[in-house]
């Protein structure tokens, strides 16, 4: 009689285990801490892990298939298979065990994916904010103070950058391959992404949502500059803007 409860107990234990894996991965990511999570590193780490995971599964299934194909090839004409008659227990075993294995793997990856997701979607307090308006077919960036630039986003290196975006005509998607991130910009909605240029340098921006004829030419770049160079660039642009308004 007691044996009946075994599956139930193992199911419970399974969820408890899964739960702890969630909890521990949440702990590792302390939202309140001041150090900035590195999503690019997180991406590379998780990507590697997932690739290993699916390669192992894939190679295992492929090898089993090849083994069966060779071992059970027809050796004489008219030969029939020798089907296995599964007992009741075997039927359930062949269902429950794979289901558990698949679900355990799913939950394990899901937990990690979720915590990386949190870091992707939680811009640090200290982020520098830039507004983006996309249109067919260009990117317009607006900095605090009203300075605008087209297709070139200048940012201070060493600071997390938060881009808030919308679109004036159709949907575009701000895609920054180097920072492993993208987000759609849409008319009537405001969306965001953030990234962390640790060093100075240039990075490609390109459009990832089909937007018509010039979709593939909607490229731009991010120029990460030293903080003081950025400040002086912004100040001079600001002065030019003032002068223009005064005129």
């Amino acid at each position, binding site marked *: 009689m007691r044996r009946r409860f075994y599956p139930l107990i193992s199911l419970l234990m399974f969820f408890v285990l899964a739960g702890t894996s969630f909890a521990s991965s949440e702990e590792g990511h302390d939202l309140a801490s001041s150090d900035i999570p590195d999503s690019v590193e997180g991406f590379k780490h998780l990507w590697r892990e997932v690739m290993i995971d699916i390669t192992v599964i894939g190679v295992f299934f492929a090898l089993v298939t090849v083994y069966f194909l060779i071992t059970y090839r027809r050796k004489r004409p008219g030969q029939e*298979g020798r089907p296995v008659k599964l007992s009741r227990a075997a039927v359930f075993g062949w269902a429950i065990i794979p289901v558990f294995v698949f679900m355990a793997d799913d939950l394990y990856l899901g937990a990690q994916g979720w915590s990386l997701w949190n870091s992707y979607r939680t811009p640090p307090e200290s982020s520098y904010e830039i507004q983006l308006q996309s249109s067919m077919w260009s990117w317009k960036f607006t900095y605090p103070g009203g300075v605008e630039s087209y297709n070139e986003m200048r940012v201070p290196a060493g600071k997390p950058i938060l881009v808030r975006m919308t679109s004036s005509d159709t949907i575009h998607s701000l895609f920054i391959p180097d920072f492993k991130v993208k987000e759609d910009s849409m008319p009537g909605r405001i969306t965001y992404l953030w990234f962390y240029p640790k060093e100075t340098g240039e990075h490609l921006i390109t459009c990832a949502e089909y937007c018509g004829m010039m*979709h593939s030419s909607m490229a731009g770049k991010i120029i990460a500059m030293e903080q003081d160079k950025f400040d002086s660039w912004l100040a001079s642009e600001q002065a030019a803007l003032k002068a223009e308004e005064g005129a």
Partner: protein
Amino acid sequence: MSGSKGGVGKFLKEWIFTIDHKRVGILYLIGSLAAFAVAGLMAMLIRVELSSVGPTITDPNTYNVWLYFHGAAMILGFQIPALTGFFANWLIPLQIGARDVAFPRLNALSLWLFWMGIILALLTFVVPNPPDIMWTAYPPYSILSPGNTAFYSFTVLIMGFASIAGGVNLITTIIYMRAPGMRWGKLNMFVWCTLGAFILQLIFVPILGTAVTMISMDKYLGTTFFSPTHGGDVLLYQNLFWFYSHPAVYVILLPVLGIIFDIVATFARNRIFNYKVAVYGGIGGITLVSGEVWVHHLYASGMPNWIRVGMMMSTLLISVPVGLCVLSIIGTLYRGAIEFKTPMLYAVGFIFLFLIGGLTGIPLALNSLDLYIHDTHFIVAHFHYVMAVAGTFSIVGGIYYFWPKFTGKMYNETLGKLGFVVTFIGVNITFFSMFFVGFAGMPRRYFDYAQMPQLESGHRLVTFGAFILAVGFLITLVSWLHSLFAGKPAPDNPWGSKSLEWTTSTPPGPGNWAEVPDCENFDPYGYGE
């Protein structure tokens, strides 16, 4: 085919006014293969364009029309009609022991609606301003576009009516027209799979119909469903679209799996491994879960964060029923007596392609990883492996498998196998290298990639593979034509299958059997006893 004039007229009349499920099925097949040929030609043109940086053979507007046509025609005109039109119509009555479908006239109606859809889709190449809105047709672009979006809407609507009529018809057929003794517990896997696919079609096609009607109303009648400046919302469409189109990939996958199950059982002379779990857990599970994952296409679309996380979990969980089906297919090989005829080669090829395609779905399901690879060529490689190519392998394998039965001719085994080998090599060169091009950052739907010229060699390799692939399909076409004109007459049951469709004469006449078979002691997978 008689030579006299009256003979030709009679012949045409017999086919055009036919309500016989087998002829309806074959006419579906002809239409869907025509769509496949034209859309395949588009694919080759697309690959040539991408083979070098800068404009190669055309301009962006024409390129976008090709790409639109390729996607829409392959899914709506080739795969869905080949599977739910040809295979389902031709095969289900034969497998359940019925003389025809439940509503033969309705069946003819859905066939001719489908043909209207095919003709409408082909008109893309003659009208001015053809649509350039991609198969997804997201607004606002589909509304702002100078192209004739209405073409898309009406093609979808007509094909949708055809699908709904077909779904009602075949679900009724499966429930009420089974031969005496043909109990649920011993139906062919193909019948189960198709039942699941039709249930999904009936629930979700109307939603796609609604969505495409709304874009045409916005564009031509001045409504503002998707216009934020007038209180509309652009994301509404994407939700409606994927609410249908994610299940749609399972509408394709389920019959595809069904064909593979049946081919594998026949050529391994073996029972389906763990039949009940495959049916209730695998096929039932896919049917249930496939409606709850659509947001995985919208991970980068600014949906609320919580729903993007929830649908990450449901997407991952779909690997459970899919895994059960794969386990069952591979398990059917165990202790079998496997014979490698052309259909079986395609089935084996399917297993490998599907493994690669399915497993690369896992990183996409993880929303944080998808923020990078979404809308890149990585996605294109994923769905070509899992749906486009694996699905086509199942369709081509299925055509070879049933070829002797529906044409009455045998095909040439050497030509068939040669076609398989060349196609399999071509497919893997094309789409495996496409994973790398995509992971290097190449976005989808790009006419050019001047900003990442370093990808040119990768693109070259993809295009090279595509040419091999095309040669493979041409060999297959030659083998079919060769068989039609010079094939030997086929026996009733060339594969020694135990399944009911092989008990008919070849090709099966009107009414399928002289007497409806008694299935009390029948088992479609009764091998080995």
